[in-house]
């Protein structure tokens, strides 16, 4: 197995801070993410994991009263730079949300290709091809190939979430953020998503917030442990889960707090 620590850094947070009004949710996070790895963020509820994740593609700023400071470097370039277009940032850093959210009144096919189509790609064969590739990556193709024109919302929760993953992959972002993508799903649907994450890791860098420590241990290469807006520890998941350096981390993963 190649040394994961030698892989190229694709995304870096530098002293990243975030606020909701007066509430300081994320307090100076500095960390880097390697290309084609799965990075888990764990920690107790309300500790700023989701907020931190939402800063990485600048969706945090869509909330009224939200503020950020510090830098996030995507391939060396600060996405918070004034000259950077937020639309470009989000095209390159995709996101899957906690609740499956396929677009209403849109077919499965439309849901997958909407990102491309609204970027101006209208060639039907290209769209169909992308849809198939992305649905396959999301391990949904076999289940929906005969009903691509049914409504996206007609699928089950687990299928909807995989549809959302396919939708995010369709614009081909090198980095994919996942905010507790399986917390609303049953164990079987969760297993399917974990399986497909191992596949998409071959091409994409994944940063995933999860409440499920077993999940983090199973799927991730690196794990960060957050408490109250601070990052207590970051390292190879193998180390974090077997031999944590910090007492707090050890207490949390052994179930003594959180």
């Amino acid at each position, binding site marked *: 197995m190649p040394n994961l620590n030698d892989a190229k850094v694709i995304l870096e947070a530098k002293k990243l801070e975030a606020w909701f009004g007066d509430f300081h949710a994320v307090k100076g996070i500095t960390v880097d993410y390697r290309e084609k790895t799965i990075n888990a963020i764990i920690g107790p509820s309300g500790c700023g994991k989701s907020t931190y994740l939402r800063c990485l593609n600048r969706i945090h700023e869509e909330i009224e009263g939200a503020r950020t400071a510090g830098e996030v470097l995507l391939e060396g370039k600060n996405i918070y730079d004034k000259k950077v277009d937020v*639309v470009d940032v989000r095209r390159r850093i995709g*996101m899957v949300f906690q609740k499956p959210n396929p*677009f209403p*009144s849109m077919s499965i096919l439309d849901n997958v290709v909407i990102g491309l189509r*609204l970027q101006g790609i209208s060639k039907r064969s290209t769209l169909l091809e992308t849809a198939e590739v992305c649905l396959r990556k999301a391990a949904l193709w076999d289940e929906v190939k005969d009903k691509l024109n049914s409504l996206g919302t007609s699928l089950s929760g687990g299928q909807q979430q995989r549809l959302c993953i396919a939708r995010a992959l369709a614009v081909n972002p090198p980095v994919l953020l996942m905010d507790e993508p399986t917390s609303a799903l049953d164990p079987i649907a969760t297993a399917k998503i974990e399986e497909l994450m191992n596949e998409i890791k071959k091409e994409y860098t994944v940063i995933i917030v999860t409440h499920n420590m077993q999940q983090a241990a199973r799927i991730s290469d690196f794990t960060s442990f957050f408490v109250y807006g601070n990052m207590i520890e970051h390292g190879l998941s193998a180390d974090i889960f077997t031999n944590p350096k910090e007492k707090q981390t050890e207490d949390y993963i052994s179930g003594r707090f959180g």
Partner: protein
Amino acid sequence: MNYRIYRKFKNFMFLVLTLVSALAVLIPLFMIIQFVLVQGASSLSLDFFTQLPKPVGEVGGGMKHAILGTIYIVLLGAAIAIPIGVTCGIYLSEFSKSKLSKTLKMTVDLMSGIPSIVIGIFAYLVVVVPLKSFSAFAGAIALSIIMLPIIIKTSEEILKLVPNHIREAGLALGLPRWKVILFIILKGSVSNLLTGMILAISRAAGETAPLLFTAFGNMYLSYNMNEPMASLPVQIYTYAISPYKDWQRQAWAGAFVLMVLILTMNLFARFILTKIKDKKGI
């Protein structure tokens, strides 16, 4: 024991009271429907739809010009009110943080409370007087002012029903905000938006007062929007207050047609809605 009977009696009386109120609401409604149906349908004939009014004294004739006029004026009014109203609703729902939107919301609430006759006088002063002529256009303006607050309010509320995580999902795909609003939020709400529009149109189609000072009415067929144009409500009004039996009979027929017209519009819209809902795919 006595107390228990008294308590049950009070309960019963309350039930009777609510029941009577409910019936009191239903009775006039049914009477209207029954009157219009009996009187109107019996006065109806094919001529009513195909003929223009005959001179006073002559029996027969119809309201073809008023039926077409109503459709024409209402559609023209809708064509003015719908784009402005929906866009305004988008502003209120999607960019509602500014001070302007608070003012706008209050204005819309006030607008929906303005008596329709006042709107008619307003359109008279603003359109009819400067152009020196009653016109279908002035009528359409008056009706569009009646439709506007309904369309704005329903659009705003319908768009606000779309959960925020749908907007975020769109933005997270790297789509500009306007595209998210137009092609995801609005597209997902088309059928609901149409319902709001139909509500506004059916409300406006039955208005008489704003048309009295604007479209004014006439006795012949006209498609010129710079000239007076007949409309069903005004025609009904004119015929109903006339002393001639035959005209009064036709007024009933007109009322019946107006009711059916509005009803059909609703049904037709619902039909389109289901079509849209069924339409899927690329």
